[in-house]
């Protein structure tokens, strides 16, 4: 099954997407990631105001198969969390690119350079499959 990749987002090797708006960014998991996880049953969100560095665990995504850490693709401070996911975690399966998990204030915009663009991420996934 070919996973969907959206143009204009940044992607991490851990299968998170980053949508940048000014000095802030929305972060979620990719279509590839939600396929691999299977049906998602719980999303554990961080507290607003928490600060995380690049690669740190900001939450947990639990599916029928496993509980997986969600890692920060870039460092930042949590501005907002998508609390709708507490009641409707399956939205991450249905619309992975609409269902952002956290909104952060980027601590260092240059970290975005370490991420992939849509084309590079597509190739990255093809290699994994």
């Amino acid at each position, binding site marked *: 099954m070919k996973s969907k990749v959206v143009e204009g987002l940044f992607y991490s090797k851990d299968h998170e997407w980053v949508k940048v708006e000014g000095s802030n960014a929305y972060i979620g998991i990719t279509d590839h990631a939600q396929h*691999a996880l*299977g*049906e998602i*049953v*719980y999303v554990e969100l961080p507290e607003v105001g928490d600060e995380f560095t690049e690669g740190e665990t900001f939450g947990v995504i*639990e599916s*029928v*198969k*496993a*509980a997986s850490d969600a890692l920060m693709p870039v460092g930042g401070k949590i501005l907002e969390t998508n609390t709708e996911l507490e009641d409707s*975690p*399956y939205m991450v399966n249905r619309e992975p690119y609409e269902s952002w998990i956290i909104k952060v204030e980027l601590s260092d915009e240059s970290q975005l350079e370490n991420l992939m663009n849509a084309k590079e991420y597509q190739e990255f996934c093809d290699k994994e499959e």
Partner: protein
Amino acid sequence: MKRTYTKLIFEVSKKGNKGYQLPSWEADNKSTDSLIPSDFLRNEDVELPEVSEVDVIRHYTLLSNKNYGVDTGFYPLGSCTMKYNPKINEDMAAMAEFATLHPYQPQETIQGALELMYNLDKMLAEIAGMARMSLQPAAGAHGEMAGLMVIKAYHQHRGDTKRTKIIVPDSAHGTNPATAAVVGYDIVEIKSTKDGAVDIESLKAALSDEIAGLMLTNPSTLGLFETNIKEIADLVHEAGGLLYYDGANMNAIMGYARPGDMGFDVLHYNLHKTFSTPHGGGGPGSGPIGVREDLVQFLPAPLVEKNEKGYYLDYDRPLSIGKVKGFYGHFGMLVRAYTYIKTMGKGLKNVSEMAVLNANYLMHRLKEHYYLPIDQVCKHEFVLGGLQADTMDVSTLDVAKRLLDYGYHPPTVYFPLIVDGAIMIEPTETEGLETLDGFADVMIKIAEEASEKPSLLKNAPYDTDVRRVDEAKAARDLILKYTK
């Protein structure tokens, strides 16, 4: 009718039914609130079921008939070592001389029980290549916790307080990072190589003077022997850390290789896996830990010691991490494990031999029909990566569900996480060739069904009391108690 019995005890309840009879009351009747302050009284009635004695017996007997266990069929649940539990273990544990002991009895009256613990300690230590054991931990994860507390005590005793991290491979059992976190460590996850081994470069990069230790199992979670274990041990020790051995896979190497000789410093066993004590259905488990000589001082207190007067519980252990369990652990399980070791004797080596042979036999029969990611001699278990590519629209879960129709407990699925669609099969040594062939035939038949008639698998199981369960709903909409 009875096979499909699905009632709750509350549904059997009928007002006024009861299973007891009290003598008539001769004293004056007093109201409850004249005896107990109203603050402590409930306002509503307790919703307890009202049933007769025979109703209770039938209800629970019908439920128990639904059980599937090692005594009813093949149970190849990978990483769990669901071997047959010899009934002589039960005979020994039921002996009045053990079963009627009280844990507060004077020690001179429980010499036999103390001797058994003392000897079991020595035997388990010998098998592991360790100096001494603590028999207290209640099960595997509890053993891990106690073992990590020993590691922590060791570093603290040396005044080395910088070590706040534990390294865990990404293929590890989930209990490894979980127990490390409970003990207060940060977890550093390292990647495995393609064949499930420790990636030496990742390990080197993770090591520092902040590392308290590495948690590992050998054979690895993929059932393959970690051939670099000496190098791994040296690297961790050079960095000042300790090596923790998760005994989950001990059934593969018993009598052939000892974790202590490989360089491990602390380990836990699962007596309910390797040493044939009951597993599942509440066990209870038992997870003794063993340590190398200089760590014995940190083991939980008490240990059983021996002097000229006999055996005694030694509480005088100033550096001990303290007690980790009420009384002395799950004593009944210790009796069973002791019985197993004594009845097997040198046969313990055959256990590992046959466990490895059985796993390799099944692997060879199945690898033409399922995807085998790593094709090499396995130890006591092996991991398939689901069906082969041309039948990809049928998932590992579908295969597991279809196995229920053929009367088998499915293998472990979707673990380890490093193999997509994992099917983890551990036949154990107690299964004969006929059983292995029967299972292999069914697995091959299911693979054929998957390519010829995928919908058959998609809708399985058909022949169980409850059909396909909605696992996502079960996790999302939890119903934790009965309400009318």
